[in-house]
């Protein structure tokens, strides 16, 4: 069993926190893991990506080869498209539909979403809206994590436990809110995949 995931977003959107929750769950399951991150210049509002590789046997390269990713998990729709050359023909695109517009020439949002809908397998979810409905806009990454969970080959309970662990310092109310966000993302993906 091997899962190759490309996480995508914009510097400052916090894709590494998603990666670290998945990573902790994988290590707790005694799986092998390699995760290449973007640090440095691009973190100033540039395009950022992380290659996350999980497997039950040893992993060679830190980078996923082209055409081999099982999943593109993007917290921003245009960024999901940037990494399509990495996606395997059987792979899934799971993306947030709320754009992050910090450049003057951001393309027409409808056209971006239309490109996503052209993909053979995708889940397009308005994570920002769902997070706001739950009561905390900042939980949109946890909604995305929930939406990606059906494709991770790790049981949802294990990921949920990781979320509870990470937010435990902030009190029961915050944990509960993030659980809700996670569930909302998961349910959406199960219904729309």
């Amino acid at each position, binding site marked *: 069993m091997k899962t190759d995931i490309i996480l995508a977003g914009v510097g400052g959107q916090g894709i590494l926190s998603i990666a670290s929750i998945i990573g*902790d769950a994988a290590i707790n399951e005694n799986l092998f893991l390699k995760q290449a*991150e973007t640090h*440095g210049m691009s973190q100033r509002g540039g395009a950022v990506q992380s290659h996350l590789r999980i497997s039950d046997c040893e992993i060679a390269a830190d980078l996923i080869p*082209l055409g081999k990713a099982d999943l593109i998990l993007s917290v921003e729709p245009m960024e999901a498209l940037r990494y*399509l050359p990495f996606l395997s023909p059987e792979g899934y695109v799971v993306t947030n539909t709320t754009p992050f517009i910090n450049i003057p020439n951001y393309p027409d949002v409808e056209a971006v979403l239309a490109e996503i809908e052209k993909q053979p397998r995708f889940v397009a979810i308005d994570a920002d809206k769902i997070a706001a409905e739950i009561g905390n806009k900042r939980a949109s990454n946890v909604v995305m994590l929930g939406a990606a969970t059906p494709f991770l080959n790790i049981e949802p309970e294990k990921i949920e436990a990781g979320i509870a662990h990470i937010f435990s310092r902030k009190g029961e109310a915050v944990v509960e809110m993030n659980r809700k966000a996670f569930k909302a993302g998961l349910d959406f993906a199960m219904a729309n995949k």
Partner: protein
Amino acid sequence: MQKNLFLGVEAIGQGAIDGGISGVYAYPGTPSTEITEFIQANELALQKGIRSKWSANEKTAYEAALGMSYAGKRSMVCMKHVGLNVAADAFINSAITGINGGLIVTVADDPSMHSSQNEQDSRFYGKFAMIPILEPSNQQEAYDMVREGFELSEKLEVPVMVRITTRLAHSRAGVIRSEVLPEKEVVLPADPSQFVLLPAIARRRYKGLLEKQELFEKTAKKSKYNEYIKGEDKSFGIIACGIAYNYLKENYPKDDCLYTVLKLSQYPVPQKYLDKMAKHCEEVLVLEEGYPVVEEHIKAAFKKDIQVSGRLSGALPRDGELNADLVAKALGKETQLGADVPELVVNRPPALCQGCGHQDMYKALNQALDKYTKGRVFSDIGCYTLGALPPYKSIYSCVDMGASVTMAKGAADAGLIPSVAVIGDSTFTHSGITGLLDAVNDEANIVVVISDNESVSMTGGQESSALGKIESICTGVGVDPNHIRVLTPLKKYHDMMVQTFEEEIAYDGVSVIVFRRECIQAAAKRLRKEKKMKDNPNK
């Protein structure tokens, strides 16, 4: 055995702590910064009192690490590749003085220039200094090599280089730790003249270094990090250096590579392995991250006519980072490709944060220079370099740390007046002070802008050596105090900022204008830390 999920840089930090260092010395630089940050925050390192504060630049860091080694203790110095240019004088000479306590020089190269001005290969420097180089292929090796590297340095009596690249630095994997080795006591070198590089002594020491080369090679031959794997098909050989070994393995997931492979992670290249390869291989492919260092080496080292391919031959691109796909192509294997990137996808370059003080500074500078022809602003390396991009397009150079002040001076000498330098606080104390002294001594007609955000921001907000010292440094160097102006870069002071620029441009001499406002990211980080301290005062 518990696995720690470490970035390559964290594995190196932990390896150094567990290897018994008494101090780490460094100036920040992507992708090396987090090594020192890891040690600064590590409980065990804090308990042991391992010295870890930032240095003013890579040269001061290197020399201090060498001083600690002189005194008998183990030390590590870390930098990004271009940092070694700054520390090169100390570095090359330290191979000749040799060491006392084990000394590791960890250098992080940045092929593909993810966050750098060039992609120079530090193995060239290692070869130039004639010292052993360790190049880990994964995070576990990075940990082990550093932990054991101090002993290797002590045994061979020279500094040892650990060379990594961005990919390993910023990739996480499980690492198993070994027992923590004790720190060393202060013991002076047995040979009291060892560190005195007067010509007569230097000649003797240099001969000694030359004589040791054979030992270095033998040690590399015996190293557990180098492995000669005999293949069924003996006509074709592959030399895979450092992390490139992983890209090779990625192409043979079932371990079904039929060729002879030399996994190379410790240099100098052992000639015995090359001789072995030369016996039956007709062609050898070199996979290496960076410059064609090994490819060039083996072309000369093979004693017979063997076809060598790699980055020089065109089998692999001459520049940029390697990956499994490029290696597959070089091996003549089929590669897969996903869908194309849709045409509507545009680049998303990095930019200054909204509300950053550098923005206000550039707006005022652009207005003050509007009446002159373009091309008069020399800049430096930091967040403010993003002022080269729209909407500011304010600056015309970014070469190496400190070059803004000296290039502005040279241009003013040539008659380009006004001529302006824009430098950050950390870059100013890294390498700007000496240039300012030149300008003062030469009575140059320049305006030096120090855009002081009270932090080393480009690399993630480390503490700046310049904090609270800039005006007194400028006065001390000899800038007329009437022409050291300090302003707050905020929209509401825009007119005052423009006027100050105009006044100082009109002054025929060295002016310094300090724009001081804390970086908003650094401020947010500080506030989070203060809140944590308040919530949890015992931590």
